């Protein structure tokens, strides 16, 4: 494997990768030696190089999800040495090999959660997150009905906080990291984003009830405020979003029962 010319910092690594042919097959960890890895490579480029070799050796290349490779689409994501997205707090695609040292043994596994069935190798099905959004993660604003954008000013602090929550990329690392397998950080990020904006108020109660209902129906676990989710979240979504969700949920339940 060749790098940018300077090979003095290249590393020899051993990978142990979860291989699983399909959803119904058993999986196992399989070992691969990967020599001469440049520290400037991204983690996924390291897997690309291994896959090129596997293809030529008539072995099945390792399947993994990825697309933008810029940390924004949320497609990538594997557990690296027991940590969702690996040792740096970033997406797997933005992890670079300079975070590792020569001789390292690296374990690579898919997101583990009953609500994310394995499709193949490191690829899982995260459709459950889309269904949580379907349940209410939107503002109903049919095309063409909008008033002028300046009709409703939004205080900058609210707009900024809504933006911070809205940066969730739907990667699912929070679920993979949570001992309860909860998707509460993901759900709360959306509740916070929309609940902070004036446009989001009319549906605020139904949104939280429906989204949390769907979250539970998908089999995600409850939140007991452990905080593993936010520790691995590549976008730094804060636990305070979950407090907000709880406040909204209580409020919504109260007004539902009051009716």
């Amino acid at each position, binding site marked *: 494997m060749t790098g940018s010319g300077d090979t003095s910092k290249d590393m020899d690594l051993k990978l142990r990768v979860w291989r699983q042919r399909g959803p119904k097959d058993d999986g196992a960890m399989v070992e691969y030696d990967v020599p001469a890895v440049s520290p400037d490579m991204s983690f996924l480029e390291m897997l690309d190089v291994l896959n090129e070799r596997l*293809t*030529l050796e008539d072995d099945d290349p390792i399947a993994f*999800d990825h697309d933008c490779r810029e940390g924004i689409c949320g497609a990538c994501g594997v557990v690296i040495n027991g940590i969702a997205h690996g040792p740096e707090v970033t997406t797997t695609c933005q992890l*670079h090999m300079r975070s590792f040292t020569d001789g390292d043994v690296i374990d690579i596994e898919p997101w583990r959660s009953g609500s994310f069935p394995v499709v*193949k190798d490191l690829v899982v099905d995260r459709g459950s997150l889309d269904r949580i959004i379907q349940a209410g993660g939107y*503002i109903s604003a049919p*095309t063409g009905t909008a008033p002028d954008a300046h009709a409703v000013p939004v205080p900058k602090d609210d*707009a900024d906080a809504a933006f911070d929550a809205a940066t969730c990329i739907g990667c699912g690392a929070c679920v993979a990291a949570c001992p309860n397998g909860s998707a509460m950080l993901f759900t709360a990020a959306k509740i916070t984003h929309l609940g902070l904006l004036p*446009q989001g108020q009319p549906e605020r109660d139904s949104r939280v009830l429906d989204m949390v209902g769907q979250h539970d129906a998908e089999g995600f676990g409850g939140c007991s405020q452990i905080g593993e989710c936010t520790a691995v979240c590549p976008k730094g979504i804060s636990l305070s979003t979950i407090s907000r969700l709880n406040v909204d949920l209580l409020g919504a339940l109260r007004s539902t029962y009051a009716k």
Partner: protein
Amino acid sequence: MTADSYHVVGEPIRDTKAPAGDIKDRWDTRRFEAKLVNPANRRKLSIIIVGTGLAGASAAATLGEAGYQVTSFCYQDSPRRAHSIAAQGGINAAKNYRNDGDSIYRLFYDTVKGGDFRSRESNVYRLAQTSVEIIDQCVAQGVPFAREYGGLLDNRSFGGVQVSRTFYARGQTGQQLLIGAYQALERQVAAGTVDMHTRHEMLELIIVDGKARGVIVRDMVSGEIESHFADAVVLATGGYGNVFFLSTNAMGCNVTANWRAHRKGALFANPCFTQIHPTCIPVSGDYQSKLTLMSESLRNDGRIWVPKAKGDARPAADIPEEERDYYLERIYPAFGNLVPRDIASRAAKNVCDEGRGVGPGGLGVYLDFADAIARLGLASVEAKYGNLFDMYAKITGENPYQTPMRIYPAVHYTMGGLWVDYDLQSTIPGMFVTGEANFSDHGANRLGASALMQGLADGYFVLPNTINDYLADGPFVPVDETHPAAIEAKQLVEDRIATFLAINGSRTVDSFHKELGQIMWDYCGMERTDEGLRTAIAKIRELKAEFWRDVKVSGVNEELNQTLERAGRVADFIELGELMCIDALDRRESCGGHFRAESQTEDGEAMRDDENFAYVAAWGYGGEDGKPILHKEALEYEYVEMKQRSYK
């Protein structure tokens, strides 16, 4: 003009269906004259939309809400991951909230001029008109645009213009706009009006009685080849920048849907018009899988320079002010660091070709924030660009707050695409094309923050008004998988897959893709010549033959097989690459992103040839071994005077 030996000339295109009359009224006229479909009938009409980026998701949400039965496809595991998510800098709109002299006419003018007079006036004017509504729509959906302390929306300026009309959400504008459209789409999925199929890749178009009536898709998990039918088909499948292998596009961006439709009769317009973006992180090694864009918005505050002396290898900090060449500010004093992308890219290439480039291999220039930090303070620079600086630091291991960024041009966007008329309908009746996949609005060069605008204009506002006109004649005769056209299309897909798997050669798909990319970059990149393009065509033909002889695709069809997916895309890229070179060869002028070395002014600027080349080159498929057929659509300018662009 005579045809070269690579193509033949067909009938010109005379009618683009734009209404006559004052440009200000044309869109109103079209909306009024287009047939309507009453709400009860919409339920009986079906639309397939391939793609869930800004152009596809916005269309699916709007048409689903309108009551049509929509079926949507994307190749990712969720519609939210479409490549639009990666757009950073912003979206233009002629709101004139800054009161700095902006107007619909000015946005129109800037876009026509920025596109170097190779786009259609009628379409661009409509785009500028619609831009205003887009921002309203997005705000209503909860898109958290940047705001000022008074609670009103903030703006920034972008390359090629002198007003501040760009709306943004930190460096993640595409993400926020797409999430808005995605949420609207998911709302329709819940309402049952949109049937969403993720991890499904379109591999063929089904044409019945001359009309687009369906698609063949592969379920990327099970490998099943499925046929889907509808009264109309919309392709919102994005751009083809990955023909260069290295680009700022997401890894899966491809031309397959468009190319398959082209082979079935859709004209492909201006394929050689590609945009090379000036501010990307330079290549670091041959394992490199993609290039990362540093948003153009950085040029608002960053200053671009190289050392005055050739081969000056001192660290940036050791090069004194008087030994630095801020070449954009020097050559283009009026626009400085904010010249359009094609100009900034070529200028970077020129200084590197002179041996004044910086960083490994000398393929880089500095983008320096020292002055901005001194002027605005660290905190304010961080608030504006923090996420971009972090991304740069992660990728390069260098701290851009302390040392200047190193940047180099990279392939970014494709102005070319499937030919569409004013209604966004392709030359195949019933097939519409939206977003980056069509060719319509950006001419030979797209201005920053205009692709998001176009994608959303097409999907929220244009297509939902024009597709009615076509559907009003439906529902068309029902078709199902037993129709000979459907059987044939499915067979084509199955045979192709079987061929890929049977070749069992000695080279990987990626090795072919990289080789193709290198040919395209060397000969059909920032500078193109007659000789180079002919060389490229010969090389691509050899590569194509070798691909079909020697590619190695492992595994089987009946499971998730990412190598098989890529093989299909690369096979189509190879054919597209050849057409791009043929198009570039035919266009013996320089315009926008297309720079023919033979056509330049004395001081090295692009020289257009309006007398001979003021046309859209719309290419027909010439058959497996035949020659592509060039249909010319003449471009006329009534509202903007054609002149050589000058940003000096």
